[in-house]
């Protein structure tokens, strides 16, 4: 690598990082796209559909993944992390840690024979632990690059010096246990940070029963449950008795707008619970959904109309009020205790499945990355941005976009990403 006359480092291969990279690449600027996971795609790849159009998420994302992979101006660094940044705007030096994939990328054809034979079963992170994958795996079926990776923490050979079955069965001899973690050094003019978010773990809110009550799940878990390529193959059943739930309750603001957890609003939950309720109804018209909310936030284009449609066409009931307590009956049906504000009476409301709309929180390693980049965080640990220069970080030449600077939906992440690309291009040209 070494010589980069005019390039930009993009950190994070979710939709924001992808959009920023594609814009820059089309603009004629070389891009070094760094992604921690084995494939690009990010959170959007985990979603079943997207509001307010109910577009199938992977359907609209996949062409972008392929474009990113093929673009001559984009170099993908998957399974890589930024470890050190020195220099200043116009002349940054980046040191990446390239984790070994243990796969010869040019040989692997994603045929999956190795997966079949691998004896190690591991919780699948992409499917939010709802199913097992193997120690050799493709991060997700439509993932890009569409090649395997070996999980060094789980692989029998790499941990216990046994097995090597994958090596024997691979017809392409694509397994390479000799690969080592390595260092990649890059010179770049500007940096775009697009590291996204992670979902809040609602376990501390014990009264809501997450992890204690089997039929209380999170929004992201529900996305995977209902997704046709997810662990249930799109057949919505609940884990306690494998029955099809007919009555769903969605609890908004779980961990959000809450001074004890995350004081901010996560921006997307009112909309995505509506979407999830709609998809559930589309799967099974006998499903009825109830959405508990504090304020129904639907300010985006077509959002209000979307909620109206949810009410009229999908029979979704919106109930004003936050839920503090969920218990269950003998059949493990969750019972929601809430105040019906129309009558001020307390209700015990049994449902079949509860979906918690958990907050978006900054990635765990955001503070570390902020340190490496030398940029500031806000009080919630998102990257700090300025109201009237929303894409600028606290350091010249480094731009932030998407959910790493605060919760936002996909269109806003895309807008941010393109915007950050414009800023990075401006910087690259002016400092060049």
């Amino acid at each position, binding site marked *: 690598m070494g010589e980069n006359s005019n390039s930009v480092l993009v950190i994070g291969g979710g939709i924001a990082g992808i959009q920023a990279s594609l814009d820059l690449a089309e603009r004629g600027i070389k891009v070094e796209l760094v992604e921690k996971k084995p494939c690009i795609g990010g959170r959007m790849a985990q979603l079943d559909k997207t509001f*307010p159009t109910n577009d199938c998420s992977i359907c609209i994302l996949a062409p*972008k993944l392929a474009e990113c992979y093929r673009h001559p101006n984009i170099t993908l660094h998957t399974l890589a992390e930024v470890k050190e940044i020195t220099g200043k705007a116009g002349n940054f030096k980046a040191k990446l840690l390239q984790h070994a994939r243990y796969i010869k990328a040019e040989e692997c054809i994603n045929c999956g024979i190795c997966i079949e034979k691998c004896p190690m079963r591991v919780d699948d992170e992409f499917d939010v632990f709802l199913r097992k994958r193997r120690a050799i795996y493709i991060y997700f079926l439509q993932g890009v690059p569409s090649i395997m990776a070996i999980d060094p923490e789980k692989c029998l050979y790499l941990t216990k010096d046994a097995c090597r079955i994958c090596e024997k069965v691979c017809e392409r001899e694509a397994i390479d246990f000799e690969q080592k973690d390595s260092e990649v050094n890059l010179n770049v003019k500007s940096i775009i940070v697009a590291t996204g978010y992670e979902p809040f773990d609602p376990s501390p809110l014990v009264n809501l029963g997450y992890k204690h009550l089997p039929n209380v799940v999170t929004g992201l878990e529900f996305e995977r449950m209902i997704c046709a390529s997810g662990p249930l193959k799109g057949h919505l059943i609940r884990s306690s008795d494998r029955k099809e739930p007919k009555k769903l309750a969605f609890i908004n603001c779980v961990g959000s*707008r809450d001074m004890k957890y995350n004081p901010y609003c996560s921006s997307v939950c009112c909309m995505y619970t509506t979407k999830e309720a709609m998809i559930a109804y589309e799967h099974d018209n006998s499903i009825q959904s109830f959405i508990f909310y504090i304020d129904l936030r639907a300010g985006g284009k077509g959002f209000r109309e979307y909620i109206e449609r949810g009410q009229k066409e999908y029979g979704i009931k919106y109930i004003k009020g936050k839920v503090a307590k969920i218990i269950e009956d003998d059949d493990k049906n969750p019972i929601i205790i809430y105040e019906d504000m129309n009558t001020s009476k307390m209700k015990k409301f049994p449902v079949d499945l509860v979906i918690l709309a958990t907050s978006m929180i900054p990635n765990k390693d955001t503070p570390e990355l902020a340190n490496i980049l030398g940029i500031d965080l806000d009080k919630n640990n998102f990257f700090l941005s300025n109201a009237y220069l929303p894409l600028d970080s606290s350091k010249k030449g480094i731009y932030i976009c998407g959910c790493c600077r605060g*919760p936002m939906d996909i269109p806003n992440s895309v807008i941010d990403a393109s915007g950050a690309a414009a800023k990075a291009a401006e910087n690259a040209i002016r400092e060049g």
Partner: protein
Amino acid sequence: MEDIKMGVFICHCGTNIGGFLDVPSLVEYAKTLPNVTFATDNLYSCSEVGLSLIKEKIEEHDLNRVIVASCTPRTHEPLFRSICQEAGLNPYLFEMVNIRDQCSWVHMKETEAATEKAKILIEMGVAKALLLQPLEKFQIDINPTALIIGGGIAGMTAALNLANQEFKVILIEKEPELGGLLRYLYKLYPTHDDASKVLEVRNLVENHQKIKVITSTEPVKIEGFIGNYKVSVKRRDGIYDIDTGIIIVATGAQVLKPEGLFGYNGSTIITQLELEQLLKENKINVKNIVMIQCVGARNEERRYCSNICCMTALKNAMLIKELKPDANISIIFRDIQTQGTTYEEYYRKAREKGITFIRYIPEKVPIVKESNIEVYNDYLNQDISIPYDMIVLSTPLIANPDSEDLAKMLKVPLEENHFFLEAHVKLRPVDFATDGIYVCGSAHWPADIPEAISQAYAAASRASTIISKDVLEVEGAIAEVDEDLCVGCGICIKICPYNAISMDDNGIAHVTEASCKGCGLCGATCPEKAITNHHFTTKQILAQILASGGK
């Protein structure tokens, strides 16, 4: 007709195909098909060895059609096409047959039937390949100029970014000066900076060498296509033409004047925008102030939420509190829209300042009496009465009335509330389906200053992907109108999602190559069957159909 020599390469894909299909028999079968002069199998067609074999055989046998039967064209067609090109063959003379994802992998237990199916798939490929034609990618010259319509904060931000990227920018504004709605604001949320401070960007724009600002000017006619638009603008002294590569629409929106609503009178019952003026002039001298949200929004006539009025009300309420700490301010609202980190914190701060929030429901809207407002309080299920000296109505941003004309000129759509409709709500939020035209700010949807700024940068980025190129290469597999058959009914023009078809002076439809994406919609719909969709021609598809029946 040219002498067709076809080469067929059948991939084992290791055992992925070879393990389930009888590949040698497929090769033998291929050899029996018309014009196949060469057929072979390949362990891995996509490997270096496989690819050089294809190249070698093209040269050796002088092949002018190539078929690879292997995996999916969605991932591998570009690779094989580029190999054909390297061997001197037009890449459109390549055809791919998917016998893995479509055959071996999905019929793993039926080797015989699957092999028979693979034969038919190959035969269909051959049938199509016989009719393939070389196509050329079109090259369009790009005028590296950006025209921005609208000189508010969005238009100015986009102009400045593009100019700083060293593109030539022309910024036209209907009003005599730049600044848009920002000119009428007092302080901005969430920082309470003076609007005039943010407006300082005006100087940078006006003095930038690369930016030409033309005020008191409106477009009257727009022609052309990506890279080559011609925009006629009207000024006081006549009509001028502007040549530009791209167009950014940043025409903003208007604040609804609530005539006839809640006793609006412009003195004691005013709008938030009018309140900004009073604040600017420090003319607030009343104690009880009530703000009503969603005035003229979220109703039958205007179903949408205007997104920015809650924050505006919170801001103005807090500013009043700063000036007059003993003022009693109530905000009658439906849902407080303060998404995200900063805005939610801002809402909490407003509560901290002692502002009273009262929720109402649309079935029972507040009633304005002489000195008090009566409203049904949803939280207590009771009517309550709030005294007032002044009422401030939060009205939505509404689309500019001239959006419709502009949309017609640009041939881009508006949504039901007359805001501009982007190409794709999720992934192309600032693009139009028509290439080379972009939108940002409140022309697209009510946006506050930070949002308008982000969008402006985004539009600038999208625009720069075009005007940074000298020439734009466009796909060869596009539509073409047979002028002899076209009767000028105009149906194709209406249904083309990309406005790629237009009527020429003779009443004949004409495809703008630069805009066509090759979806084929026009060809399947044309009543006269006057449109050829290259690479997916009717003849080619009929040949595939015929071959698919098997023998």
